[in-house]
């Protein structure tokens, strides 16, 4: 194995220049980027092929450092297979796709039946089932499609955050959001938001927190960690989730703000201020 | 006289004189010989009717069997009920005491019902009803509210149904207990104590008693405990 690159150098910096508790930079894009997608021209064969509109109801793209995930939400809409429709609530199904070029261990086969992806999809589904107000949409179906574009550690974290943002963008009623973050341990130092390199060498866990009640809805650890260390890493991760919640909250708030002001332009009663202008070219 | 027979065994009836033999479940006549089609113990009543009592799990509906079923779906005119048979049974909206077009029964998907098999032909979906057709009264049939239902073997279910069996009176002496037994191997037990406050909530000891009753029935079903064994089990439970 090549020369050992230090996870944490004596100066307290990690291999990518971050301090111990620093999160990677987050880049969030809500809504669909392609201009035509929010307006879909219905040509006949397209509609006949699959009657559902091609534009997702909600879309979000999130990047934690180099790890990038995109989530698209279709629905709530008619269940494609009558068998799946549940008489008193919505049926959620989740599909996770790992793009072949996304790097990491995915270069090998990650086909449809790959158990790792099925497990990730099952985790996302059971994470959001108690969070979405499924009772509001009986006999309908909500599809969450998560694509992993790039992998550099924290794949589960990016998938969960992307799914939350896409559901918010789709306007699906949620009791609370779910914010995920990963944390690891290097000898006695707790590290947050690990890269793929750090994940290989340190025991790490991913935590999914519901910010409103502060409760933990998702917890996943696949590496060996002594019980005495666990509590410390676990509590730091839960704290860090608040920061990510802040970032996500910012984006959601600013996005809603810009859409509301865009809508306000059309109303004759409101005058339009210059501020709204530059807000406009942000879209 | 009960001897254990296996499928395919030839049955030679004792001296029955001229009376015609009546063959119950598990026996069939093949070219003037009687052959067993199921493993179990051969029983005979008044030397003329023979049947095989086997401890099957899968229930084959026979008419006028009391059964316990779960409502799985609600259709235009009837409910579909799972009674553990190959195909689900149908329970007509009107098959209740005093039912009419207007006052529909208030059953929901998932409700438990105690009913009687009215139609059970080989090629038809079985039909059940929640009243005794002859008297028109509910005769104990209808929705089973509260309590708990467990699965036991067919033999245990049949023995619980016979009035002379020791188990139910024994349990009844310990605490107030309501029991509904289905030939399809399902037994519903409920020990609702008329708590001092009169409310029929599942108070602490009514849940405890129901669990005790369940464990006794299961012990009898799986280990065949006798009265002494059951009493010993009850004593160990009542801590």
């Amino acid at each position, binding site marked *: 194995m090549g020369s050992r690159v230090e996870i944490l150098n004596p100066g307290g910096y990690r291999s990518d220049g971050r301090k111990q508790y620093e999160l990677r930079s987050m880049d969030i894009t809500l809504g669909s980027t392609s201009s035509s997608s929010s307006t879909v021209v219905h040509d006949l064969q397209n509609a006949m092929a699959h009657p559902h509109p091609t534009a997702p109801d909600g879309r979000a793209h999130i990047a934690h450092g180099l790890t990038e995930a995109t989530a698209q939400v279709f629905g709530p809409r008619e269940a494609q297979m009558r068998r799946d429709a549940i008489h008193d609530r919505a049926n959620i199904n989740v599909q996770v796709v790992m793009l072949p070029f996304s790097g990491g261990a995915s270069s090998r086969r990650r086909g449809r039946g790959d*158990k790792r992806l099925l*497990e990730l999809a099952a985790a996302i589904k059971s994470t959001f089932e108690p969070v979405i107000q499924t009772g509001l949409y009986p006999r309908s179906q909500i599809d969450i499609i998560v694509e992993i574009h790039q992998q550099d550690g924290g794949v589960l974290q990016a998938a969960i955050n992307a799914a939350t943002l896409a559901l918010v963008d789709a306007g699906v009623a949620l009791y609370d959001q779910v914010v995920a973050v990963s944390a690891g341990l290097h000898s006695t130092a707790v590290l947050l938001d690990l890269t793929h390199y750090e994940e290989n060498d340190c025991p790490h866990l991913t935590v999914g927190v519901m910010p409103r009640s502060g409760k933990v809805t998702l917890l996943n650890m696949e590496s060996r960690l002594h019980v005495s260390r666990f509590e410390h890493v676990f509590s730091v991760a839960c704290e860090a989730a608040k920061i990510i919640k802040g970032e996500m909250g910012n984006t959601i708030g600013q996005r809603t703000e810009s859409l509301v002001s865009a809508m306000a332009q059309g109303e004759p009663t409101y005058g339009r201020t210059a501020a709204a202008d530059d807000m406009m070219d942000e879209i | 006289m009960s001897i254990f027979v296996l499928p395919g065994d030839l049955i030679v009836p004792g001296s029955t004189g001229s009376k015609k033999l009546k063959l119950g479940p598990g026996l069939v006549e093949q070219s003037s010989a009687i052959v067993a089609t199921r493993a179990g113990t051969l029983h005979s009543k008044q030397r003329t009717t023979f049947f095989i009592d086997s401890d099957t799990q899968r229930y084959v509906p026979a008419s006028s069997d009391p059964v316990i079923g779960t409502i799985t779906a609600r259709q235009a005119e009837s409910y579909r009920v799972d009674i553990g048979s190959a195909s689900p049974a149908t329970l007509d909206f009107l098959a209740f005491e005093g039912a009419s077009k207007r006052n529909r029964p208030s059953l929901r998907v998932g409700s438990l019902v105690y009913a009687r098999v009215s139609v059970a032909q080989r090629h038809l979906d079985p039909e059940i009803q929640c009243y005794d057709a002859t008297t028109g009264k509910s005769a104990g049939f209808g929705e089973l509210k509260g309590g708990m239902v467990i699965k036991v073997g067919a033999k245990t279910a049949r023995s619980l149904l016979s009035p002379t069996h020791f188990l139910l009176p024994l349990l009844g002496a310990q605490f107030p207990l309501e029991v509904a037994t289905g030939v399809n191997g399902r037994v519903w037990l409920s020990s609702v104590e008329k708590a001092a406050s009169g*409310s029929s909530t599942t108070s602490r000891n009514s849940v405890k008693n129901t669990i005790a009753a369940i464990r006794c029935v299961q012990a009898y079903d799986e280990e065949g405990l006798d009265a002494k064994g059951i009493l010993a089990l009850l004593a160990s439970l009542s801590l």
Partner: protein
Amino acid sequence: MPRPTSPSIPEKEFLVSAIQQSLRLDGRPLTTLREPQLIFGSELGWVECVMGKTRVLAAIDAKMVKPAADRPYEGMINIHSEISPMASSEYEQGRTSDEEVTITRMLDKVLRRSDALDKESLCVVAGQRVWSLRLTIQFLSDGGNMLDCACLAGIVALRHFRKPEVDVEGEEVTIHSPESRAPLPLAIHHTPICFTFALFSFPTTQTGSTAAPLISTLPSGSFSTHQTYALLDPDLLEETLAHGTLSIALNAQSELCVLQKMGGVPLDQAKVVRLVELAVEKAKELEIFIERSLKEDWAGRGLEVI
């Protein structure tokens, strides 16, 4: 076969009121395992684990193969765990059910990825001949929580298995039969054991009031006012109606190997930590039980030739 019907309303209500009074159908306290029973076969590395009505069989066989190019010093272990309709009519042959995905992944993490088995000890001739173990898990009957039962059967099978002794002279590799040389145990670093809790959550307002307890199988709503219960080693009914599960795999040296709470009803941080500590106690007890069972079986074998 019609899909197995979901439990009836009385069953749900009864379970809810029983749990709220810390009672279970088989009389166990909320935090007690069903007493596992280990039945060893005549072959070494063949064990059947029985927990209540749940039965899982684990069997190991080994053969000599050429190692993978990128790992010349390491032997291989692969796990076959397909759930057949034998376990329950709910499973179809050939179709991967969700339970099978969870169990297969957990077995992979607990037995393979946790380095419980020292792969390098399986090496015979580096680059040419290594032992390749195949652990087959057969699910005989699903009485709830097949996951824990399968993990226990798997790790005990690994500790029970003996591989033939091998002599290497240059290119010459001779495998000694059990009669001539006593077979050798595998190098097992630690014994990870999996504990699964079924989680239930009811709004606190319900317990006191006379209203029938909340019977929706899937509670949702902000969980700040909910009371949650964790049932260790759930039986079939508890597993079906559970609002979520938490699985903790750790060894007797209280080293966590896998922590898995894949969604479902959320828990407070303190509750998670308490459950982890509870699992540590249980792991120690179970380790003693495994030791004792292996010794008893070994004593009865009389294979010692020396």
